[in-house]
């Protein structure tokens, strides 16, 4: 298991990742053992109101959901929420 939390950012939120390309993988690895999504957003400099869908290991989650090392977190901005075809 990974020794960090893997944060995958999309849309406007990619700005805080090293790879900001819209067709790339904007990943931030946080060296922390656990916390909430809210803690993580504070650390990486994203405001809670900028965020829409949050996934932890592929499961829809919210700002107070707990995250542990080894988890994969996907965070989408507000202008990418709620889409269907």
């Amino acid at each position, binding site marked *: 298991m990974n020794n960090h939390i893997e944060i995958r950012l999309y849309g406007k939120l990619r700005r805080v990742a090293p790879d900001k390309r819209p*067709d790339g*993988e904007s990943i931030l690895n946080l060296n922390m053992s656990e916390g909430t999504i809210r803690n993580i957003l504070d650390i990486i400099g994203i405001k809670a109101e900028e965020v829409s869908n949050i996934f932890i290991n592929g499961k829809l989650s919210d700002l107070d959901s707990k995250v542990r090392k080894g988890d994969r977190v996907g965070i989408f901005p507000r202008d*990418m929420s709620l889409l269907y075809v």
Partner: protein
Amino acid sequence: MEPSLLRVDMSKLEVKYEPVPEKYRHLGGRGLTSAIVADEVPPEAHPLGKNNKVVIAPGIVSGTSAPSSGRVSVGGKSPLTGGIKEANAGSKTSQYLAKLGIKAVIIEGQPKDRDNYYLLRVDKEGAELQEANQWSGKGLYEAFNGLYREFGDAVGICGVGKSAEMLMANSGVCFNDLEGRPSRYAGRGGLGAVMASKGLKFIVVDGKEAPGVKMADKEKFKEGKKKLVEALQTHDVTKLGGALNSYGTAVLINIMNEAGGLPTRNFSSGRFEGAAKVSGEALAEGVKKRGGAGKTGHPCHPGCIIRCSNIWPKENGEELVSVQEYESIWAFGPNCGIDSLDVTGELIKICNDIGLDTIEAGNTIAVAMEGGLAEFGDGEKAIELLKEIDKGTALGKILGNGAAFTGKALGVTRVPVVKGQAMPAYEPRAVKGIGVTYATSTMGADHTSGYTIATEILNVGGKADPFEPTKAELSRNFQASTAFIDSTGYCLFTAFAIIDIPEGFEGMVETCNGVLGTEWSVDDAVSLGQDIVKMERKFNEAAGFTSAHDRLPEFMKFEPLPPHNTVFDVPDEELDKVHKYE
């Protein structure tokens, strides 16, 4: 002008206008196509025989100034599923038909001589059939351009391609977009082949000086429209600069991939490592960088305020194709292991030209890959396979009949179909409610017939755990409200705004009341939708469907899907509850 039905008898090559029977007066779109099919087509009819019919109907408010209301429904008995079918598209043809006072076009019979193709011309003076052989055997891009030279470039066109002429079960009905491309498909279920089996190749509709939609209560309509416009313009999904408008429907590629529910390599995984390269973000960036003909925020019909369509440019800025939307990109991209928008664009363009539904075609190629005809990820080979359909080779005729047919021909057991129709871009093992809809829809596997994803993944209209199997009620409610929206002419995407903003739904129903003079409430609207589903269900039962057909393919019950490693564990009893009404 009183609305009428336009009946086209292809046995006698005659057309006539009929008054609208009382029982159809308040119907439109899917409600009307399904009612006419249920009343006039024997359930046991061969889909390609003389007793099947094709019914084309604009929605209740199509042709008015209501926002995003240019959908047109096409109905009949499906050669792909063997059941009742309604497929719809956004097109100015819908608005022209409505403005000409035509509630539905009913195409019936079959000419004895099957060598000739005809086109139906409709304008304010009336309708007539004429020979159309010069456009048969051609790609639709060439054929549509020929029609514009003959009839002017403002006409609305509804047509079928070469695959339909070869009576392949994956042939859609194609409508032209605002700039004239053959790109707006009522794609699913093979109704294109039904139309071609009657010798009808095109319907050309001239909306010039059309009298307009008769309205019972203009004030009520205006009030309703105002509420709906406000809802659409404030909701994050549907507003200008919102998700659909900025990224197109493909914004969902990254979301479903993150959710672990993006079917990959013929439904063998829920995550695709190349997803970012074919995402809505990649698409918007490509359009921006390449410039030229590229465009996002492109409307499919006049008066759309959502505008989720796009035009994808080649590297040199010239147009490659319109439209790269979520389902089509997914079908040829992740589901075939392909991570290039240029390749998905090429494949979509071939479908537009030949006359194929992209969801079924992408699933077919993926099944063919699984069956050993190509490696997953081999875009060149995928293009070659689609071209076999165009050429009408023996292999092409297998592929042109869809995923189930191809799976059988190649001995593949992992074939993602329900009632013979291939699944769209949501994996039922990761999102159980959509699996319930796939299994129990009257249409075969169809996400649009009950989009539980809204609640299970996107938190629209409440929140439901996607892994929880008790989903009969959720799916039933979505199936009912969808059947209503499919009858109005409104784009299904309006659902986001009206589910979250109650005044929006009220406004939608009020615009219908304004046109029809009815007094429907929001609850009435849902129960009207329920009645449509019941009617379709009755037709399917008479056509031979039982609860055994309301099931997902067996492999989904025992093959765990990564990354969640879950199977489809919704019990049969839960599936059977969907259509058990109080």
